């Protein structure tokens, strides 16, 4: 009995030492895609790959970097106030004419919030009120595929809501 208690207090066998997966920690930026011609309708992207600046591999979703759907969540840097991504539509398509790359830079402020002993801290983001994003075409100009971007929720605290709307 004594040894068990002692072992618990020293080797920390309590379950509060493992950060539970259901705990809300650092949230990602949730983007929803809409039809530019029919703004109330969600529109699915095809083989979208999102590659962070300076990265070689795209953000992976269930072991694939290709996104096919109307919503996507992307991680923001927790050690910088801006994160740049390349949004490449029809990535890897043999028909080079349908492949289109746009650049998006997100500007935000960060706040580190205490979660628990096991999880440590999390970072919450607030998109910059004046310049939340900078949208540019790829270095090799191929005309922008994104027509319009709207900030839906500037404070990024969880992944249950859409923060950014992209119309194309």
């Amino acid at each position, binding site marked *: 009995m004594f040894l068990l208690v002692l072992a618990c207090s020293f080797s920390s066998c309590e379950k*509060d*030492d493992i950060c539970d997966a259901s705990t809300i920690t*650092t949230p990602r930026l949730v983007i929803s895609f809409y039809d530019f011609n029919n703004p109330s309708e969600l529109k699915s992207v095809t083989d979208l790959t999102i590659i962070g600046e300076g990265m070689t591999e795209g953000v992976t979703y269930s072991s694939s970097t290709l996104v096919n759907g109307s919503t996507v969540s992307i991680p923001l840097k927790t050690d910088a106030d801006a994160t740049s991504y390349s949004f490449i539509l029809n990535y890897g398509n043999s028909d080079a004419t349908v492949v289109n790359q746009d650049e998006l830079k997100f500007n935000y402020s960060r706040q580190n919030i205490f979660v628990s002993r096991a999880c440590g801290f999390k970072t919450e983001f607030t998109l910059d009120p004046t310049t939340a994003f900078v949208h540019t075409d790829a270095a090799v100009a191929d005309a922008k595929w994104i027509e319009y971007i709207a900030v839906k929720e500037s404070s990024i605290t969880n992944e249950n809501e859409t923060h950014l709307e992209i119309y194309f």
Partner: protein
Amino acid sequence: MLIATAQETTPVKPAPKNNKTEEGVLPANSFKEAKAVPKPIAKDTISPPKTNRYGLRVGADLYKLTRGLYDKDYKGIELVADYRLSKKYYLAAELGSENKTTDDTRLNSTAKGSYLKAGFDYNAYENWLDMENILSIGMRYGFSSFSQQLNTYKIYNANPYFGEVAPITSGEKYSGLSASWIEVVAGLKAKVFNNVFVGFSFQFKKLVSNKKPDNFDNLYIPGFNRTYNGDFGVGFNYSVSYFIPIYKKKVIPVTPAKKPGPKK
């Protein structure tokens, strides 16, 4: 009938035999021993008269003192004291100070502060003759006043696409923190020589109040120790103490025999 007769016969038969043998042996031995025989008969052999010493016992927790020698993240001292109120009850208190750095996988923080615990111990051990050992169960109310410093922390990111970020150095200090708790103490104290006692105790604690800092938690509370999710805590101490006798009380065989009856 059979049992009754059996009971009657058995004590009667060995008794005279014993008396006879004793009477036979004793005169053969020295005269002193022969004289000593009537004394225990005159006395009440079940509860011989004894004196209970009352006084103040003061000491220190060696576990906390020595831990500082091998654990660079810990410095602490605890003074212990108890005062005997009655045959079984002791007023007990502990006064301590701790400086503990807690190094968790995602957080490193230092708690510094002092605490006072006060309550009572109930001695459940029936001592023989003039023994003064204590096997106790007791309760305490503890209060701690402390500060915390967050040294480093890590950001938990379930999607470390840009790689794990290095721990962030904070150095932020949270002062004016406090906590109070109740604890159940199970302890043992044994007289090793003269008035010197060694003992140890285990404490099970439950927080009553806990003033946490903004955007951080009290991961370690001096006196309470490490905090868990459910407000519970555990503690251990190993003390060496010195008993300062103040007065003695004679235990009259008749009265203590009567007293436990109505009490229970």
